């Protein structure tokens, strides 16, 4: 359908539209008009993504100059695929003259088609395998030698030849390209899909990639450096964006890292000796360049780019590298001293927490390395590695970690802390020293994004309380709004279960979680539900260790065997491959009618981006409240920072964080208004007002008072009722005054109504 919002013709790929989608578009358009940032919360299951994509695409078509580009950031690759699929649907509804180019971007691991590089298992080894074939000095060597003597990548060579005659030669025809499409295209044309995509994002109208390509300076530095200001940046499912931001600037150092770094330094010393003997001029040239103040070697070849500086672009010193680390040997000895110093710090017996200022002072006094040298560590290392023509970057990750750490600690004095723990709190008898540089200030990493781009849209199904995010991220949204959901029928049914079938309270509180009575009551709950609910059921637990424990207990008690009589059981594990296969099987089991249960973890990978809509999830059970591990030093330090800077109370933040996770987990069951699902919060703490009230409004509005304090048998009764009610046919468009589905005519009428008012 096609309709007008003010003066913009909006192309929408469906015949009908939900009223909240329309409102969402209206708000979004205002934000774009104002060229400001906005914060929008809309419940899951109301087609947020398609509303976003269709409005921004239509807006770009309506205002062709300056060309507006959409940078759409998703948290995961599978969400990227979903977004691209929606974009493809939208594209088939755009007028044919206005076709645009949209593509997804990912790492080499996901885009490479070269069988040699692909045979490597991990991402880092694929990256370094690619460098081994495509680095500029490798290619130069290959050009000198007879063909075949030095292996190169045929796909990259073909692409490079095609691209050398100008960017138009490799410009992709308009359309939507998923990662799979890019790979297929690469195979067909013999071009390298990764570098093709890297090149194409400059010309594309829509780029879909992961958060880190904008937020993590290491990656953003190479990928997103050239994006113009006329960009609309969307962070979808952004309820966790503060965590991503602080993670992007956090580094930890372990004993293994230091050992690895020592080995790396040793090898680099050997390389330097070798170069001295054979090709001393190279080292001298590097020195001269550094004297002239160029940390980087001018225009770097596309393939030589490595992970960029971990500090944010604005904070990188535009000065010459200090004199005492210009010479390779001197730099190596500085690094050696640093590693030695860190080794000494790791030998502590007590937990130590330090501010960066103190740490830098201590480094300076004990190892003789001043702050400026620390700040340049990363750039100097990068330059040295290029000079030494090191291709197997995956071997040098350890020393790179050390340099990242040094650069960050030398750059930032505020919002960070250094925590040294001799062992894990949970396993005090196993020595596992770790030195962590943790960032507490989420606004640091996202600041350049807000500054650079004209509109940043942060949206998710759960952004409650919505006033907290501008404070955490330190920005001023022009629009900040939370939408409710208009429903034709009560298609979600949240319940709070506080007691088991024996009327004893259930909870994952620390003192109760290992109580066999609670474990059994949770098991009975699952067993009853498995027998009553058709198709898929998803269970979320508070942590991996808790899930392992309770599943083992259920196995011993025989509850798991009884569950298996009704449904197949799949579990999320730490191994992503296995989890992916388990998910795939889970879907197949739901498709074929066998029915299945999926056990997952509230802060795990599955909870982040996998939908359990329609028959893939008719019920989701949240076992416990997913609080963070409150004894973690990092968390304590962060809470302290939040209290001092934003006056946010510890308890409030912890509850907010736990409840947004819980809401996110249960929100995965519903996708559209035709869908339906139940949500059980199985913990007595949910019945308390201070916890419950932190849930997003669209859940709270369906949470009836009668459902606040249930036992297993009552919940079962309600579930049966609900399922029976949902099985009845209903009127999709909604009746009476409140329409829940708008057609084109309705929208036109609404438009006229508005006209009349003015």
């Amino acid at each position: 359908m096609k309709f007008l919002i003010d003066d913009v013709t909006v192309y929408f790929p469906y015949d009908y539209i939900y009223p909240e989608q329309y409102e969402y578009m209206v708000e979004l358009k205002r934000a774009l008009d104002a060229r400001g940032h906005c914060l929008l919360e809309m419940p899951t299951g109301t087609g947020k993504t398609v509303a976003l994509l269709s409005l921004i695409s239509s807006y770009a078509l309506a205002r062709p100059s300056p060309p507006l580009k959409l940078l759409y950031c998703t948290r995961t690759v599978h969400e990227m695929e979903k977004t691209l699929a929606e974009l493809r649907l939208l594209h088939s509804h755009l007028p044919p003259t206005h076709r645009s180019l949209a593509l997804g971007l990912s790492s080499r691991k996901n885009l490479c088609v070269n069988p040699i590089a692909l045979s490597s298992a991990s991402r880092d080894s694929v990256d370094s395998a690619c460098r081994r074939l495509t680095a500029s000095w490798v290619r130069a060597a290959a050009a000198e030698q007879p063909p075949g003597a030095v292996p190169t990548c045929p796909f990259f060579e073909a692409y490079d030849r095609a691209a050398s005659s100008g960017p138009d030669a490799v410009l992709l025809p308009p359309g939507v390209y998923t990662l799979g499409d890019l790979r297929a295209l690469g195979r067909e044309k013999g071009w390298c899909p990764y570098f093709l995509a890297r090149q194409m994002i400059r010309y594309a109208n829509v780029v879909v990639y992961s958060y880190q390509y904008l937020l993590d300076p290491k990656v953003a530095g190479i990928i997103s450096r050239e994006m113009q200001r006329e960009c609309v940046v969307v962070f979808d499912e952004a309820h966790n964006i503060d965590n991503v931001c602080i993670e992007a600037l956090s580094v930890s150092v372990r004993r293994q890292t230091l050992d690895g770094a020592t080995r790396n330094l040793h090898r680099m010393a050997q390389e330097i000796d070798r170069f001295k003997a054979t090709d001393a001029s190279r080292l001298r040239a590097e020195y001269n360049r550094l004297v002239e103040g160029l940390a980087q070697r001018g225009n770097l070849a596309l393939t030589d780019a490595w992970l960029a500086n971990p500090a944010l672009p604005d904070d990188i010193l535009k000065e010459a590298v200090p004199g005492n680390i210009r010479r390779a040997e001197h730099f190596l000895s500085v690094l050696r001293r640093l590693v030695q110093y860190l080794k000494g710090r790791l030998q502590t017996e007590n937990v130590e927490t330090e501010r960066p200022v103190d740490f830098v002072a201590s480094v300076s006094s004990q190892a003789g390395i001043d702050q400026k040298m620390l700040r340049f560590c990363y750039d100097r290392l990068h330059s040295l590695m290029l000079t030494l023509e090191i291709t197997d970057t995956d071997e040098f990750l350890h020393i790179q970690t050390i340099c990242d750490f040094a650069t960050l600690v030398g750059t930032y004095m505020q919002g960070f802390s250094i925590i040294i723990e001799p062992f894990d709190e949970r396993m005090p008898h196993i020595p596992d020293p770790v030195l962590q540089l943790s960032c507490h200030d989420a606004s640091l990493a996202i600041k350049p994004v807000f500054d650079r781009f004209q509109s940043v849209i942060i949206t998710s199904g759960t952004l409650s309380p919505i006033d907290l995010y501008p404070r955490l991220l330190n920005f001023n949204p022009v629009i900040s709004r939370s939408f409710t959901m208009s429903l034709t029928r009560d298609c979600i049914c949240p319940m709070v279960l506080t007691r088991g079938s024996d009327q004893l309270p259930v909870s994952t509180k620390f003192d109760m979680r290992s109580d066999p009575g609670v474990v059994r009551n949770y098991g009975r709950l699952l067993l009853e539900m498995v027998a009553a609910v058709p198709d898929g059921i998803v269970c979320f637990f508070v942590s991996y260790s808790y899930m392992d424990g309770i599943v083992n207990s259920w196995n011993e008690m025989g509850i798991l065997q009884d569950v298996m009589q009704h449904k197949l059981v799949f579990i999320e594990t730490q191994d992503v491959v296995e989890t992916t296969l388990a998910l795939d099987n889970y879907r197949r089991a739901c498709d074929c009618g066998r029915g299945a249960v999926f056990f997952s973890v509230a802060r795990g990978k599955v909870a982040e981006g996998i939908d359990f809509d329609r028959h893939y999830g008719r019920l989701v059970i949240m076992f416990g409240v997913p609080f963070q591990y409150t004894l973690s030093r990092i968390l304590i330090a962060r809470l302290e920072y939040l209290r001092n800077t934003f006056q946010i109370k510890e308890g409030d933040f912890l509850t907010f964080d736990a409840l947004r996770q819980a809401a996110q987990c249960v929100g995965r069951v519903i996708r559209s208004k035709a869908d339906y699902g139940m949500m059980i919060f199985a913990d007595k703490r949910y019945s308390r007002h201070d916890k419950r009230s932190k849930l997003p409004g669209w859940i709270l509005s369906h949470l009836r008072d009668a459902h606040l304090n249930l036992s297993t048998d009552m919940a079962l009764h309600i579930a049966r009722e609900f399922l029976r009610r949902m099985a009845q046919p209903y009127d999709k468009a909604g009746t009476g005054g409140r329409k829940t589905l708008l057609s084109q005519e309705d929208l036109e009428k609404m438009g006229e109504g508005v006209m009349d008012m003015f």
Partner: protein
Amino acid sequence: MAVINMAAKYKTMVKEPGIPGVLKMSEEKFIFIPNDPRSAMKLNVDFRSIKGHKFSKDGSKQALLNLTQDSEKGGGYIFEFDNFSNRNVCRDFVGKVLGKFQALMSSKQNEQPVPEKPAAAIHGEQLSTTEMEHRMKLLREDSELQKLHKQFVIGGVLTESEFWATRKSLLDDDAQRTSKQQAGFKSAMLADVRPLTDGRTNKVTFSLTPEIIHQIFAEKPAVHRAFLNFVPSKMTEKDFWTKYCRAEYLHRTKNSVAAAAEAANDEELAVFLKNDDILANEARRKIRRVDPTLDMEADLGDDYIHLPDHGLPQDGSKETADAENDIARRTLSQDLNRHAAVVLEGRALDVELGDTRTVAEALARSKRAVSFAETSDEKTNQERLKRVSRMTEIEDLQAPYSLPYAPLCIKDPREYFDLQQANALKAFGDTDAGTKPIDCSLSTEEAYVHLMEQISEMKVRGLNNPVVQPEAALKVLNGLNQYLSSTKYHLGKNPQESVLDRLPNRTKDELMHHWTSIQELLRHFWSSYPITTAYLYNKVLRLKDAMAQIYHKLQETKESVQSDFRHQVSRLVQPMLQALDAAFAHYDTEQQKRYNKSGNKPNGFVQ
């Protein structure tokens, strides 16, 4: 077959002590002579009256043999023997005699002039004792069928084979059903064998059944491969499983040090404890065809925030860090996932579970076939893409998809719709009976008059008294009910049923029985035409006689019923009689033709 003499005790009930005596069995009959000559419990029974035999299991308390008579007559002859070998001799003898007898019985009724044929028939019948049992079972389950069988087969109108020939579908259907549907894997995790301890010694017992072994093979390809490699060339099957159980036990006790030590000493044992490399390969292959919208591995490959030692430590990431141990730490979650995957895949094995070796080999074959089939990739890819795009669409924002559907097949529309209407009518009658005006009944005027009277009365007296007089109400209600049930009849919803319901039970049963008998006979009758063999000719003769009998009986019933039902009964009987008349007419014309032909024939042949 000789005669068997065996000491046994005769009982009428299992619980009784029994009367000691001698059981004498010949081919025709069995005789029981009690040891105590005064006892009246002498038996002399013809095998003809024995329909089957049951016996207690070997090793159970008593060695019993139960010769059952017709189920209708009830009871049987129970003999207890001193030991099982004696019982088994008798049991086998009885089995043979009964089998032969049944065949003989059918062959006797095969009044065929050619002697070879019945022999062949006997042979054929005898070949399939399971078939026989199956037929017996069908008869037992369906009393109607049993009645027919008794009437015609035992009564000699039809032979056994003729009787069943028209019910081929019944036989085949069942046979096919049992063969076609394969049971999948059990949902229970059988492969997770739990050890049993006796509590006194340190001995631990694992018990494996063929079913469990099959599941172990399916879920643990490494064990399967090891079995194919080692057994029987390197070790016996028993040793293999002992070793497997030992490894399982080590795994179960979570004693990783002991496990490592054992694995170092014994390389075969190590196979069971190590990571399953076949599974790992399979996973790598499968991950490529996984739906991209849930491919979390790709996500891991894109995540530069969590470079080693970057980002914040996540829950549980530590455990994976030091799992580089050679002795894999197989977790329950992995087992659960694997089990569910195997159950979902289903079992494509058509080998009887039993011999482990054949099962293992068959499994290997089926796996190879599967990996062959998976090579065609392009199509599945297309399908996957289509599914992804389907999944992204929001279903209620657009016109519904016209899904391919199979139209509802109603076998007997009349029955189906009648039933619905009857139901509707019933519901209607329940709720609306009270409010329905009696507009076309005889009592309209009466009711009107009565109502007027009532109203005028009420006007005088006020509302204190009941509005309606009880007698009048009852009368109206009765009239109403009669009207309702009679409409049911008049509308012709299911006249047979409602009429039959009114008939006395005896008459009703009789009619129903006649009706089924006639159907059976007519089916055989019409299927016999055109008559090509003498056998068919005889059959038709027999059928005609039987039909004539029933015709007669029908007439009798019709006349014998009470006068008030006579009309209805004759209405019911009418179609049956007509059908029979048609058959007779056909018979007569055929007979006439035949006669004419045979009359002409000699002339033709002479020339």
